[in-house]
């Protein structure tokens, strides 16, 4: 075992490395799902419910079927009627609705035709008779007695409930010098990936069904398809295409379109392609949970947190998705990045007749951080403590064990705060900026993959080719974050080859090893460890052959720049390729490595919430400077400085892209993104009206800086932790705090639109005049 410092002298890792697949993508040669075309391929379209809640009385497809060019029409009755879903307790999805629709946009039928126009036309010819049912859109209404019930098995429309209690909050509140309560509200936000969901299904006449699709977690899809189609997983093959942005949501699950592509193919004997329009993407479920967060905090007079009590109500929409875990995670993450010795959490996720909610970059951590860091700023103000100081006083440190049992290895939170203070010029700005300019601070944290009840372990396989390059397969997908590159870098580091010598293959359930997939910032740590192990496995095999050939103890051999070298006598060396060929050609060896990482030796108790949810945790801090236009209330973000402890960044170029991407997404979430729904109908299902950040919405490059605080995370492969989600978690509170600093207006609900800010400013002026 090499020591830690020698591991840090990387051959490959730690250097900014362009993404391996970027040349194809930049040349327009990367094949996305919508780019696939097959001989005889048909085009499918989905018919959606116009009602938020209705019983399907009858569906008559005869006119549609009579339209020239239409090859098949299917409804929910064409499927076996088996519900599928993410968590075993909450399987409530059907491929197509059978007798009830629960939100506007829910899929009720599908058509396959020779082209998209014909399929579209056929949708208009399908007659669906509905019996409209009373609907409910607000979670508080939905919980009341007498409210319409969405799912028989969930009284009060509670789709998931979770609570946890560590320490003794009542006693702690009684001791506290200072207690305050606030309520925060967040809005529905969409993933906003630019590639609409798309798939091609082919169900051959011999019982084998293949789906090509832009899935982040192909194995989750594979299992769900088997569930909903009620066939053996072995008869299904899921092939991952390039993923044009994921951010969780529909690319994480099997969607109605996926089932329909397969079923329509079964009916027609042809491959069938379905592609969502952007309007469909925005109308269907999959979005961040809108939440109401009641937060009560007690502190000492010097601002040390003694207790936090959180009650959370999440508007879950019509189906469960991953919602049970969403609210669990929100509660667990109260324990980061501050020490909260006593905490109590009670949460309900409630069914309503809206599009359903699930995960999205940062999952529910983002909402919690907005609430907590907004409130912390108020506490600091009330207690006359510097906002950075109050954070330092409560900051979690290396080696802490949190109240709920998170074991913190590395957590350079103090240093993140210090760096941001320096980069932003905090102490020259706070309280010293001109009117309508303000600066705010915000912090957050994330985990490097969660250990779930079901499938948690990652695996990797590697096969040496005779030219000394390797094929590397895992079940984790690149969704743009750079998985193919960083996994190749890890393999190359161990094998002493270059990144280009590693061929990272996309997931194909017929060929790649089983893996939960890409979500929860798990890949670098979980899959990275598996890849490292697989590469070490191959090295062991090669060292055996090389040792024999060189007359050296295999344990003394090291792999460096395409050579295998005797560590004790570096003159003794031979080329990697020579050993590979000797082993393969003369000894008939197959050099093939395997690795896995499960981190499952200890279990989380999902009922009490106690346990070490992730192998590693990373803090983040940021400062945002804004200018508010007093005439319009419009916020301009003039500066953003962030610091993260992502462990040891394995590919700094990709880490930079991840943290900046996450931060900018949070700007959108804070200031304008909002899926507006009236009686369950999405009023802005277009990218014109659902506004996401543009290039002109960011600070100038000189005022948009990010810094990595380098730590060596012992659980991470080569010291690494996650980078893609944490960086967005502190930004929203920082913006709210900056708007407050600029205007005196404290906004507790998102997005912080110009109208809200203007209204707040008017109200303050009126108050001041009144005094």
């Amino acid at each position, binding site marked *: 075992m090499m020591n830690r410092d020698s591991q840090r002298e990387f051959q490959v890792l730690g250097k900014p490395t362009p993404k391996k697949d970027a040349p194809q*993508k930049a040349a*327009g040669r990367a094949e996305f799902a919508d780019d696939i075309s097959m001989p005889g391929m048909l085009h499918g379209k989905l018919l959606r419910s116009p009602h938020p809640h209705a019983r399907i009385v009858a569906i008559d497809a005869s006119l549609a079927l009579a339209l020239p060019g239409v090859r098949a029409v299917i409804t929910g009755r064409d499927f076996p009627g088996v519900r599928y879903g993410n968590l075993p307790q909450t399987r409530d999805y059907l491929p197509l609705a059978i007798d009830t629709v629960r939100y506007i946009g829910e899929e009720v039928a599908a058509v396959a035709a020779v082209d998209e126009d014909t399929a579209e036309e056929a949708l208009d010819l399908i007659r669906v008779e509905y019996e409209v049912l009373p609907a409910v859109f607000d979670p508080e209404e939905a919980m009341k007695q007498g409210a319409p019930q969405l799912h028989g098995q969930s009284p009060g429309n509670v789709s998931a409930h979770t609570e946890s209690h560590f320490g003794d909050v009542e006693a702690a509140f009684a001791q506290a010098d200072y207690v305050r309560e606030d309520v925060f509200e967040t809005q529905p936000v969409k993933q906003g990936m630019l590639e609409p969901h798309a798939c091609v299904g082919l169900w051959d006449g011999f019982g084998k069904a293949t789906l090509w699709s832009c899935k982040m977690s192909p194995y989750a899809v594979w299992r769900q398809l088997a569930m909903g189609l009620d066939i053996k997983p072995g008869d299904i093959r899921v092939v991952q295409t390039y*993923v*044009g942005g994921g951010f969780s949501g529909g690319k994480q699950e099997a969607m109605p379109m996926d089932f329909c592509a397969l079923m329509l193919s079964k009916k027609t004997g042809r491959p069938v392609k379905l592609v969502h329009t952007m309007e469909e993407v925005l109308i269907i479920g999959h979005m961040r949970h809108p939440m109401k967060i009641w937060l009560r905090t007690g502190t000492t007079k010097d601002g040390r947190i003694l207790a936090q009590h959180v009650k959370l109500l999440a508007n879950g929409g019509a189906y469960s998705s991953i919602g049970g875990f969403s609210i669990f995670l929100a509660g667990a993450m109260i324990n980061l990045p501050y020490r909260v010795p006593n905490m109590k959490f009670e949460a309900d996720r409630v069914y309503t007749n809206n599009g359903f909610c699930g995960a999205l970059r940062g999952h529910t951590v983002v909402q919690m951080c907005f609430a907590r860091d907004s409130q912390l700023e108020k506490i600091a103000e009330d207690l006359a403590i510097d906002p950075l100081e109050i954070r330092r006083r409560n900051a979690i440190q290396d080696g802490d064990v949190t109240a709920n049992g998170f074991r913190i290895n590395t957590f350079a939170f103090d240093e993140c705060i210090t760096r941001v203070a320096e980069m932003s010029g905090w102490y020259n700005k706070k309280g010293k900026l001109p009117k309508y300019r303000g600066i705010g601070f915000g912090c957050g944290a994330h985990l490097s993959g969660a250990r779930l009840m079901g499938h948690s372990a990652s695996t990797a396989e590697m096969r040496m080719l005779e030219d000394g390059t390797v094929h590397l397969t895992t079940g984790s997908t690149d969704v743009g974050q750079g998985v193919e590159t960083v996994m190749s870098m890890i393999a190359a580091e161990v094998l002493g080859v270059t990144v280009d010598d590693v061929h990272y293959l996309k997931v194909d359930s017929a060929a790649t090893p089983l893996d939960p997939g890409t979500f929860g910032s798990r890949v670098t740590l979980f899959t990275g460890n598996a890849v490292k192990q697989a590469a070490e496995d191959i090295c062991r095999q090669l060292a055996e052959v090389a040792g024999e050939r060189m007359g050296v103890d295999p344990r003394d051999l090291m792999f460096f720049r395409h050579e295998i070298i005797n560590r004790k006598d570096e003159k003794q060396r031979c080329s990697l390729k020579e050993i590979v060929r000797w082993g393969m050609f003369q000894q008939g060896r197959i050099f093939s490595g395997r690795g896995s990482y499960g981190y499952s030796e200890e279990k989380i108790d999902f009922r009490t919430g106690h346990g070490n949810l992730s192998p590693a945790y990373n803090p983040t801090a940021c400062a945002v400077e804004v200018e508010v236009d007093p005439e319009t209330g419009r916020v301009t973000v003039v500066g953003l400085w962030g610091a993260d402890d992502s462990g040891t960044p394995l590919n700094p170029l990709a880490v*930079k*892209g991840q943290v900046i991407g996450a931060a*900018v997404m949070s700007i959108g979430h804070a200031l304008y993104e909002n899926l507006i729904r009236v009686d369950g109908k999405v009023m802005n299902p277009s990218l014109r009206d659902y506004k996401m950040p543009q290039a002109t919405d960011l600070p100038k490059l000189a005022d948009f800086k990010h810094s990595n605080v380098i730590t060596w995370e012992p659980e991470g492969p080569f010291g690494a932790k996650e980078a893609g989600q944490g960086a967005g978690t502190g930004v929203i509170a920082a913006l709210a705090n900056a708007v407050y600093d600029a205007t005196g207006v404290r906004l507790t609900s998102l997005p912080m639109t110009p109208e809200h800010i203007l209204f707040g400013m008017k109200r303050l002026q009126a108050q001041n005049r009144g005094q």
Partner: protein
Amino acid sequence: MNDLIPVSLRVNGVRYDIAIRPWRTLLEVLRETLGMTGTKRSCGEGQCGTCTVLIDGKAVNSCLYLAVEAQGKEISTIEGPPEGDPALEQIQRSFVAKGAVQCGFCTPGMVVATRSLLSEIAEPSEDEIREALVGHLCRCTGYVQIVEAIQDAASQLAHKGGD
């Protein structure tokens, strides 16, 4: 089908004689009729820029442009001309090197838009670059590395410009 009309298009310097329905957008014709799938389809309504192509050197959203309108004009796409286009290739290299490509779905549109920007303004300021990117969404990168890539491409091309 009898609603097809003959159309002649020049794409990347190559002439294509095809029969299409008159309401077909240039995006549909490029992707479906000509099989040139480098140009991407996202919003389909002029908001995201993933479908950007050049018509007589000017960047347009091909999802809003009828293919019949493009007759007699020079259409350039991300695939580039068969003989190569050094400026396009430099932009692509800069995007790769600077980390401007993540999922890559916006990238063809961004690259094509950059090709048009740099042919109009050889060394655009940061603000000019950002202005040129309005209407080009990228959900992954947060734009910083895209702006840096465009700056890099501009300076690389300006250096080579003399020869």
